[in-house]
């Protein structure tokens, strides 16, 4: 790929994830980890095509999706540029959150949960959290005034 692009795409044929989505996810991942920041240019479509030997429409679809998500913007004749960031939280706060999560992990371990058990419990709680939040938002006329039922 052309020198000077901040990231290089790769493909995992065994992942079962559609190719365009792999590209989208790699950009999002790089944004979360700070490898990409606003103003950075994504590799040119033709360069991605030539380096991965993939269909150009796949790359266009991925770049369109990133644009729809508001993460990138195309500049005519120049290419596609990052315009948003995905790391919403400053580093000190992240460190604090990580510490409290470590405390939870130690407690779960102490209670006898194994790794898969922790992942399952966390995913389930995360799903509930967002479902509850979405529920309260869509219903969310202030008139209802009712808080989500907590057992």
């Amino acid at each position, binding site marked *: 790929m052309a020198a000077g692009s901040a990231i290089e795409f790769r493909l995992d*044929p065994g992942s079962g994830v559609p*190719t365009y989505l792999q590209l989208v996810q790699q950009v999002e991942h790089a944004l979360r980890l700070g490898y990409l920041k606003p103003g950075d240019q994504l590799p040119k479509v*033709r360069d991605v095509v030539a*380096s*991965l*030997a993939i269909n*150009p429409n796949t790359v266009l679809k991925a770049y369109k999706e990133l644009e729809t998500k508001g993460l990138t913007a195309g500049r005519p004749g120049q290419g596609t540029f990052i315009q948003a960031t995905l790391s919403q939280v400053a580093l000190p706060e992240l460190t604090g959150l990580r510490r409290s999560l470590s405390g939870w992990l130690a407690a779960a371990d102490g209670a006898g949960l194994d790794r898969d058990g922790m992942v399952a419990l966390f995913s389930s709680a995360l799903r509930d959290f967002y479902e509850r939040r979405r529920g309260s938002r869509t219903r969310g006329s202030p008139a209802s005034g009712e808080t989500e039922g907590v057992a």
Partner: protein
Amino acid sequence: MNVVETSGLGKRYGRTWALRECALAIPAGHVTALVGPNGAGKTTLLNLAVGLAEPSAGAVTVLGGVPAGSPAALDGIAFVAQDAPVYKNLSAGDMLHVTGNLNHRFDRAYAQDRLAELGIPLKQKAGRMSGGQQAQLALTLALARRPRLLVLDEPVAMLDPIARHDFMATVLAAAADGVSVLLSSHVLAELERVADYLILLSKGRVQVAGQVEDLLAAHRMLSGPAGEADRYADRPVVHVRRGEAQAHLLVRAGAQNPVPDGWEAHPVGLEELVLAYLREPGAAALPGPARGRGATMTEVAR
């Protein structure tokens, strides 16, 4: 614009029909993969499209209605036949010279730059090049003609993995520049990455045709109890794989179609889809323009 359009197209060799009642409309701007078992008629169809063979029945036009084989058609199409044909005793430079003189449009500068990029010296004889280099030379000569449609017959069958990757990278970069591509291939695993339009031939007939995205969205894999597999009748079943307890049905159904109780639905990949149809030569999926304008969609046949 359709880069290849056929209606009632057939080709007979002696008493055998290599291709029959072929109705296709391949839109421009795609990389189209032509797949099918040996003897399905892939090479016959490609030869008819580029004008190397005359139809026994029906008609084939290219590049938006131009008769195949006519001067205008020849001018806009580049064809690389099976086994990357190059003259073994000619050097790369000679081949470039000859091809340039035989075609009224030939981008000599592009060809020279490309060969330099590939590290192929102009003095080197084609017969002394690796298989990958010979294929790249043939492809370079084809692309230097600046075609609107590039047709390749089994282009990567003989190449090692790296040569195959590099060859396809060149083809797809041309596609990114706006060249429509039609290629036949046996390598199913790479199909999903490379092609966005699929034609599956079986025993001389078109079995599946359409945009890959549409085909994948119109099929799902249902997994559930083997005992109930035969009772599934909501949507056409293409292929069944059955264990003692669990069965998998590849069905023509989209995300909007209901999933029976006790069954799970999964999206299918292109390789899985193609294999299922190859195993069921009686099933057909011909959405979109493949049946010609105005015709109704063919549902199943099992």
